[in-house]
């Protein structure tokens, strides 16, 4: 049965956003059957199916008139041409031009004449031929109505039964569930889902344990599990390990961070005001962000959560002394109503701008809490939904006492200080202390000034000295012209505090100490924090006027604060009290919030929109795919009863969001595998029926956070002011790399979106964000392949991996595959030894054996007890004591002629310098000495054989102190065949020959770090073959290995980056 309902949804409601025909079909069914018990309908409808279909006014004609005609002929008090089209009998009465419909002859009906010839409606939009045809058939049928028309109707366009019975406005009712006992359904939810499947479909098997662990952690926390988490849950032996895991994860504080981000999208969170180019920062918006995190972690009941955000200030009341913790909480919550862009404090405080901010705020309220596009009714009645122009202003009247465009407050004027009386007192007493020091300083300064003056005056002879003293001591405005001239001529006497240091340097230093003390005292003052709130002033029951066509320049009648009329049963009041006299504020928002969250009769739009969003985040798509619009322009629910069930459960479970998560996560529909199979693909390739769990790409924040986490970089500190942004030369914005905290805490400026996050579909806030797209574009690939962030994380991950791998074992076969790759024969060697200077020979070459990562030494200790300071690095080195020179040895790969260029430098002013010698085959090819100087070290042509050595020796002179030297040499080797090759000492500098076998274990460890599973033999083979290939490449092209790194290290970094780019990492199964 449910299956048919779905079908009906597909064909009827779902078929089109604009298609009135199929909708009327739907409403017909709905009318016959009542809103929820639609299933029984099929048989009934068969009966009707035999009847010829005649359009009726309420179901077929009125929607057309509403779309095209009623704005002028019914909605307003003044009717165009005196014609009212709201009821059939009004049409029969007609207007100034006569009756609109007559008999059953369309041709003689004025309505038909004007519409069919496109004379009406005026303007661009004309009635489509299909709709005209419906109109014509209705007229031919004698303009039938479904029921007797009301005797009286109030002003405006009345709501019809058809509009009231639209699914979204129906009260929440628990659906009847036929429980499945024949299947893998675990919960009522599962039965509802499975009942909607055709017989050949059923749930897929549960996903693997690892998949479930990863799925739940990412879904609830936006973070990966740790290796420890994975091990713990993988090895857990109790049958309810999964439920226990869900429970444990729900208690993590990271849960609030993850789900706060979802709510902040809907609320339109931004750390800046937008509107103007300045995009002024909102330094205190984060308090609201933190409020949301805390509320979700505390599992604050959602009804309370909503009331606080809509009317926290009214709940809080006036302060009795300091704000209480509860009051602060309530006030912080109203940050929700301050999320809309607001340029009134940053250059655009025009009436347009103020009204725009109000409209955006209402749009956020509408799309987030009411699942409705309220904003469409800003200028006229909503064309498709029963939300009137009047309704819009009734909602606006709820907010206007707090957002009064005629008595506007700029964002700064709305800040509330959190200073307590104690803070204020402490600050005052500290300021007093500071002032006392300032006075001490003044006294001291006067003394110093006097002293400086005396000292200066001593340079003058009397009587000039006395005249100068008198002139100086006379206050500026009392000085005679002569005195002024005197001081101008002798400016050095005119001492001021600012130039005191030129006269008495010590005195100036002394005075600075006072300043430092003052500053220190002042820093002890408690920091003044603020909240960004919407706080309605007391006694401010402003009058709201309806704006003709939404134009504030054309105010019309007064509108009382009220509800969406379609949600109020006929005959009940639609308004809220103008002013609740029991509290200082008007109480309008409080009444509205309480109306929305009544537990006995919760607002169906609110509850449905809440549970729909939760579903959307768990499954990637809402039951209504347009969470901000449940109206006719939005989508219809794919599983209406699931929506009903979740909604009733939420209210029954005291509005506990965590309880809702539990219900969803412990169900089979959530726990099943995401793998496709042919039966499912044939029956429902889009998985509209949930026969498998949809795969989801990591959200933007999770991409960044999970990479930081994998690289062991993530700083889990919670709360506080947003993380600074940095903008590179190209204008690409990123989060300060020194603050590797969760992306949620980044500064979300409207004009400065973080490139990585934006690329992965994080919203750039205009108003708010109902649904993030999940795009797949090449710019994302470029970001992950070439962006600094990913590369940095890959390097860090490689570092961690090397440590981890040092303690793990691996199949020797893989090591062997890498060990067989021979390191290249080194052309350079690094050593010390005995030189026979007379005959120019190296009597013994003793290689340096310890490599630090950037230089060669004889041991880890420097200076070495025996050899002293001897060391060599890429650019030069330092000789040891007289017996231990440095020797950089070049070994000729082939025979030929060699010429050498070089530059020797000794930088220090101290010591006695160094001497450098080039030795070849027992002769000295060159000899230079430098001290705090540099010298070129060219050598003409040497004939060499393959395997010959050329030694570049540096030794100290008398002393080895301060003997750091640089010596870059470049050897040009020309072979007999004329080919030449250059060998530069710096570029050719190498550490020890690598043992590549270790890399095998590291590759495996990296895989495990990123995927939480060991590679299969096939995958390991793939990694090894990659490593072999890349080792050879890096050996051949050493510039690819950054300074201080090795071939193995760079291969590992590249593998790490590749794993972070892969689908297994970027998607949740």
């Amino acid at each position: 049965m449910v299956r048919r309902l779905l079908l009906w949804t597909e064909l009827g409601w779902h078929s089109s956003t604009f298609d009135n025909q199929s909708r009327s079909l739907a409403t017909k069914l709905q009318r016959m059957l009542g809103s929820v018990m639609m299933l029984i309908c099929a048989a009934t409808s068969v009966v009707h199916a035999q009847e010829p279909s005649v359009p009726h006014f309420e179901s077929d004609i009125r929607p057309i008139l509403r779309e095209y005609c009623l704005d002028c002929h019914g909605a307003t008090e003044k009717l165009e041409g005196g014609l009212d089209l709201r009821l059939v009998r009004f049409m029969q009465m007609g207007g100034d031009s006569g009756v609109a419909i007559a008999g059953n002859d369309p041709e003689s009906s004025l309505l038909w004449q004007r519409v069919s010839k496109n004379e009406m409606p005026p303007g661009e939009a004309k009635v489509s031929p299909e709709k005209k045809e419906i109109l014509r058939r209705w007229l031919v049928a004698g303009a039938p109505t479904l029921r007797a028309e009301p005797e009286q109707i109030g002003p405006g366009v009345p709501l019809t039964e058809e509009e009231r019975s639209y699914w979204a406005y129906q009260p929440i009712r628990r659906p009847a569930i036929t429980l499945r006992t024949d299947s893998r359904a675990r919960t009522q939810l599962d039965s509802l889902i499975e009942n909607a499947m055709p017989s050949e479909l059923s749930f897929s098997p549960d996903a693997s344990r690892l998949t479930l662990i990863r799925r739940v952690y990412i879904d609830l926390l936006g973070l990966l599990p740790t290796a420890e988490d994975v091990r713990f849950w993988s090895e857990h032996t109790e049958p309810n390990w999964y439920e226990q895991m869900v429970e444990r994860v729900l208690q993590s504080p990271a849960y609030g961070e993850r789900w706060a981000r979802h709510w902040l999208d809907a609320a339109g969170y931004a750390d800046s005001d937008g509107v103007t180019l300045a995009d002024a920062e909102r330094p205190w918006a984060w308090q609201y962000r933190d409020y949301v995190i805390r509320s979700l972690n505390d599992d604050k009941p959602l009804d309370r959560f909503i009331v606080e955000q809509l009317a926290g200030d009214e709940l809080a009341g006036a302060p009795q002394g300091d704000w209480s913790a509860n009051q602060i909480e309530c006030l912080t919550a109203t940050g929700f109503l301050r999320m809309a862009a607001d340029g009134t404090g940053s250059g655009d405080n025009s009436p347009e701008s103020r009204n725009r901010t109000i409209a955006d705020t209402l749009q956020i309220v509408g799309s987030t809490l009411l699942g409705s596009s309220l904003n469409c009714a800003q200028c006229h009645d909503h064309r498709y939904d029963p939300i009137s122009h009047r309704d819009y202003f009734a909602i606006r009247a709820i907010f206007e006492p707090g957002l009064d465009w005629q008595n506007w407050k700029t964002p700064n004027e709305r800040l509330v200080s959190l200073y307590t009386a104690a803070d204020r007192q402490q600050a005052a007493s500290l300021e007093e202390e500071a002032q006392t020091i300032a006075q001490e300083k003044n006294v001291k300064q006067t003394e110093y000034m006097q002293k400086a003056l005396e000292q200066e005056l001593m340079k003058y002879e009397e009587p000039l000295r006395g005249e100068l003293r008198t002139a100086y001591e006379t206050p500026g405005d009392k000085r005679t012209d002569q005195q002024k001239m005197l001081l101008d001529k002798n400016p050095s006497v005119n001492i001021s505090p600012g130039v005191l240091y030129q006269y008495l340097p010590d005195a100036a230093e002394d005075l600075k100490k006072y300043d430092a003390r003052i500053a220190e005292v002042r820093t002890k003052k408690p920091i003044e924090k603020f909240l960004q709130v919407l706080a309605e002033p007391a006694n401010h029951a402003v009058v709201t006027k309806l704006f003709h066509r939404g134009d504030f320049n054309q105010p019309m009648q007064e509108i009382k604060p009220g509800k969406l009329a379609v949600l109020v049963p006929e005959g009940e009041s639609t308004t809220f009290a103008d002013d609740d006299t029991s509290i200082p504020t008007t109480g309008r928002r409080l009444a509205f919030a309480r109306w929305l969250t009544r537990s006995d009769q919760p607002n169906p739009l609110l509850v449905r929109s809440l549970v729909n969003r939760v579903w959307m985040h768990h499954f990637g798509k809402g039951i209504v795919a347009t969470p901000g619009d449940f109206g006719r322009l939005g989508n219809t629910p794919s599983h209406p009863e699931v929506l009903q069930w979740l909604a009733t459960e939420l209210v029954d479970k005291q509005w506990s969001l965590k309880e809702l998560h539990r219900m969803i996560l412990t169900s089979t529909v959530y726990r099943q595998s995401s793998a496709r199979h042919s039966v499912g693909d044939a029956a429902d390739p889009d998985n509209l029926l949930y026969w498998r769990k949809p795969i989801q790409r990591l959200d933007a924040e999770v991409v960044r956070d999970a990479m930081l986490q994998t690289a062991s970089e993530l700083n889990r500190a919670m709360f506080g002011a947003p993380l600074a942004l940095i903008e590179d030369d190209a204008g690409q914005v990123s989060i300060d790399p020194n603050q590797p905290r969760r992306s949620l805490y980044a500064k979300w400026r409207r004009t400065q979106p973080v490139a990585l996050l934006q690329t992965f579909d994080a919203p750039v806030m205009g108003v708010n964000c109902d649904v993030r797209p999940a795009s797949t574009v090449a710019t994302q690939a470029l970001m992950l392949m070439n962006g600094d962030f990913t590369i940095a994380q890959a390097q860090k991950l490689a570092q961690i991996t090397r440590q981890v791998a040092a303690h793990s074992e691996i199949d020797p076969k893989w090591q062997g595959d890498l060990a067989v790759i021979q390191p290249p024969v080194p052309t350079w060697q690094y050593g010390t030894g005995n030189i026979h200077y007379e005959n120019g020979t190296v009597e013994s070459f003793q290689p340096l054996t310890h490599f630090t990562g950037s230089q060669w030494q004889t041991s880890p200790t420097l200076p070495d007890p025996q050899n002293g300071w001897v060391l060599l690095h890429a650019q030069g080195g330092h000789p040891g004591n007289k017996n231990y020179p440095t020797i950089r040895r070049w070994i000729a790969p082939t025979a030929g002629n060699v010429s050498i260029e070089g530059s020797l430098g000794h930088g220090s002013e101290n010591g006695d310098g160094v001497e450098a010698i080039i030795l070849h085959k027992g002769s000295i090819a060159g000899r230079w000495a430098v001290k705090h100087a540099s010298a070129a070290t060219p050598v003409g042509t040497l004939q060499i054989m393959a395997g010959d050595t050329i030694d570049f020796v540096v030794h100290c002179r008398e002393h080895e102190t301060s003997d750091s030297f640089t010596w870059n040499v470049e050897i040009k080797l020309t072979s007999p065949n004329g080919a030449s090759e250059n060998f530069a000492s710096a570029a050719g500098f190498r550490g020890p020959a690598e043992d590549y076998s270790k890399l095998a274990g590291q590759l495996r460890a990296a895989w495990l770090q990123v995927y939480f599973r060991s590679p299969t033999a096939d995958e390991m083979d793939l990694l090894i073959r990659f490593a072999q290939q890349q080792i050879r490449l890096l050996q051949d092209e050493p510039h690819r290995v950054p300074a201080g790194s090795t071939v193995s290290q760079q291969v590992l970094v590249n593998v790490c980056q590749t794993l972070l780019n892969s689908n297994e990492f970027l998607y949740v199964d």
Partner: protein
Amino acid sequence: MMDTPQPNSRRAWLAQAGMGVGALALQWMLTDAQAQAKPPVLKDKPYNDLMPRPTHFPATAKAMISLFQHGGPSHMDLTDPKPELTKRSGTDYPGDVHFSFVNQASKKLLGTPFKFFHRGQCGMELSELLPHTGEIADDICLIRSMHTGANGHEVSIRYFHGGIPGILGRPTLGSWMAYALGSETQDLPAYMVLTDPGGHPVDGVTNWSNGFMPAMFQGTVLRPKEPRIFNLQPPPNLAGTSQRQNLDLLQSINQRHLQSHPGEAELEARIASYELAARMQLAATDALDISKESAATLALYGIDQPETREYGTRCLLARRLVERGVRFVQLFHAGQPWDNHSALKPSLTSICKRTDKPVAGLVKDLKQRGLLDSTLVHWGGEIGRLPVTQQHGTPGQEGRDHNGQGFSIWLAGGGIRGGMAYGATDEFGHKAVENVVTPNDFQATIMHLFGLQWDKIFYPYNNQKQIITAQRAARVVREIVS
């Protein structure tokens, strides 16, 4: 992408539902629906790639460059001379006018302060503000009878891009072209957008939105300054072979992963996105490097002069992209420089100076390279301006308010008849009165030039055949097709 229903799933649905208890009800619903309107029966799967696709009939255009002029260029001052308006300047307009800026509204007619000249062999009358456009008069078809019916910017912009006035969430013209025709190049995105250094145009990124289509049909933005595409190049130590090896490893790992998710389009698309990214590194670098263009070419676009350098560079880049097989290139201005509500004379002069030469240079360059025959060039905004004065109380500050009732755009190349003015506004330039062309007609005509029957190219969404003109009345303006 997630919201994209695959039509054959619904077909499967219908097949299943044709059996059992529900069959009759279904039958009734279908019959009933058919009696009222065509039921949505979708047969074909939508394209989900960018391979070149066949056209319905031979195309005259293969690529399009759209030079969008945000704000509403003032046709009475640029492209549509109105002697009667000039004659009666200062007197009251006799008809009704709808104003956006009610406070500054006035019915006083405002004649143009600019002179018009006959240009080209065809003698097309154009304003002195467009001397260079005058030089291409014989190549362009000037449509003087555009009509959106709405004066607002966003309403009309969305009409031009998405097919319905004021409605967001629909694919833009470029998305439709990329979807319908695929791409001639697999090394560059099919649909590219060149934004202004001053920032985004009015309506921001929705100007190049893919709406309900997959993201691959979205406009790819080339940044207004270097680097035109972020992260295009790897750091030197990864460049070339090393990155290729990394990518090969990545794709091997991803292919193995895909084996456990056969047919998962999203995963396949990401694998493809890495290959496109790799090809783009080479192709985009080459396309964006204008250093080898001759001095004569640079001068043609005004790149040698400060005033025209920026727009000229983007026009030249547009040609280089089209040359390399990009299907649809669109240029945008920051904000809306043609929104001349005040100080009409200086502000209009200034934007013309910035754009006239580069625009004409582009058409001339395409022509001399033989590309104009297959490249459609579009110049125009979303609305025009009113013939009456927008008052500011100060002489010289007069401007013109919005006008969606009548305005001009022009097309050139790609099978358009050159040297032709089409349609007309009333004697004051207020309303289009002769051969009225709507944005839907414009869209249908463009599709026609590309060899497509516009109402046959659909994307299934919400179980409806969505077409570019959204089922609104449209016609191919055959009179302007050569």
